[in-house]
């Protein structure tokens, strides 16, 4: 146990990167999701088709493979990314696909009468989307998106394979140094658990706050 205490700063640094990668990917993934969801619902045929292909490919392939392609695969084309950059890109693209599906479902769940009422009052399609449809869809999407977020937190461990020193790789580096396994693995498991439940808690609070109107 002493080795863990001694190396706690190093592990916490790993946890910090895990959090950072989760939040950054979630942020850019959300932006991607908005565009893709709107493209699938309102785009013309080629745009709809491209958005669909993106979602299908991402959902149909392992996240690990996507990470490896972005980091190692792109080298063939002369693109040599920093591991952390590659992690951001791969995970944003990945999570964007899942979130876009959540958002699309949420947008479709808003009754048509909402749009009609807004149009009838003279609002343009863009105003209607921004002021009426989106705010409602976001509330519908938050619980499932929150679950995606927590899933994401755990998936970040995958980027250890491209040498990003997040939480899992931090422990592996220490294990290689001290030749003890369990204390480090248990420690990081606990850290993952604390972060996940922390997010769950925040999420519940957020859901409560957003549901005041029902």
């Amino acid at each position, binding site marked *: 146990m002493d080795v863990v205490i001694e190396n706690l700063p190093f592990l916490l640094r790993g946890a910090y990167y895990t959090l950072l990668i989760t939040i950054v990917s979630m942020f850019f993934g959300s932006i991607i999701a908005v565009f893709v969801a709107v493209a699938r619902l309102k785009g013309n045929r080629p745009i709809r088709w491209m958005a669909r292909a993106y979602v299908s490919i991402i959902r149909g392939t392992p996240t690990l493979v996507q990470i490896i392609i972005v980091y190692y695969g792109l080298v063939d084309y002369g693109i040599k990314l920093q591991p952390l950059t590659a992690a951001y890109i791969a995970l944003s693209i990945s999570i964007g696909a899942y979130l876009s599906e959540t958002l699309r479902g949420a947008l479709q769940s808003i009754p048509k009468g909402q749009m009609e*009422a807004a149009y009838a*009052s003279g609002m343009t399609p863009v105003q209607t989307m921004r*002021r009426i449809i989106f705010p409602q869809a976001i509330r519908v999407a938050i619980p499932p998106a929150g679950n995606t977020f927590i899933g994401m937190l755990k998936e970040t461990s995958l980027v250890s394979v491209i040498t990003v020193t997040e939480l899992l790789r931090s422990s592996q580096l220490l294990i290689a140094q001290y030749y003890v396994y369990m204390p480090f693995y248990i420690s990081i498991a606990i850290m993952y658990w604390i972060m996940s439940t922390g997010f769950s808690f925040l999420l519940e609070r957020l859901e409560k706050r957003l549901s005041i109107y*029902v």
Partner: protein
Amino acid sequence: MIKTTALSKSFQQLEVLKEIDVQVNSGEVVAILGPSGSGKSTLLRCFNGLEELTGGSMQVCGVLVDAKQSKKERTKRIRQIRLNTGMVFQQFNLYPHKTVLQNVIEALLIVKKWPKERAVEKGESLLARVGLLEKKDVYPSRLSGGQQQRVAIARALAMEPDLMLFDEPTSSLDPELVDEVLAVIKELAKDGMTMAVVTHEMQFAREVADRIIFMADGVIVEEGKPEAFFTNPETDRAKKFLKKK
């Protein structure tokens, strides 16, 4: 205020409105009656462009819309019409994520770009008019159906429309809540608002309407003064319809 010429509407093969010629004059209250599925809602929704006409033309609030115009031109004109019409729906369609007052002033802020204070002042006076000022800060889900529909009417009035369209405004209300909504509509009629009201409330139509339009199967079967229509309908269709009521 409204004048259509051979207005037609089809959904794919289904011809829902067949060359309708109808007129609503300024200050007039017209009740549109007819069995369900006869095209009443579709006609009303054509007036403010929620449905696109597929044939003929119409002039609403001084704006001409023709099925032959380009899509872009029609969109522009429809928007012009919507700025001058208010619509009230059977299902209220209030914005659930906005308070009562926010519902009423949303279009004033977003479409007309009024400053907040001015919009709030207007919104509050409209809520007072429908008797719901004390509910201004609650969310629609906390209101009864009748109250929600009154808010929806206030919301439609906020844009100071020249024309109000009502699509069965009381059909999804519990019977004991119908009157409070009809009372608000009657007030509007008294104030001289031009209105087209699709309704199944025969007593209301008889009392308030200046003219009855009776539709069946996508055509106007009969049209006339309420007294004449209700006491002495000319067509068999209308006789049958009134007997069932």
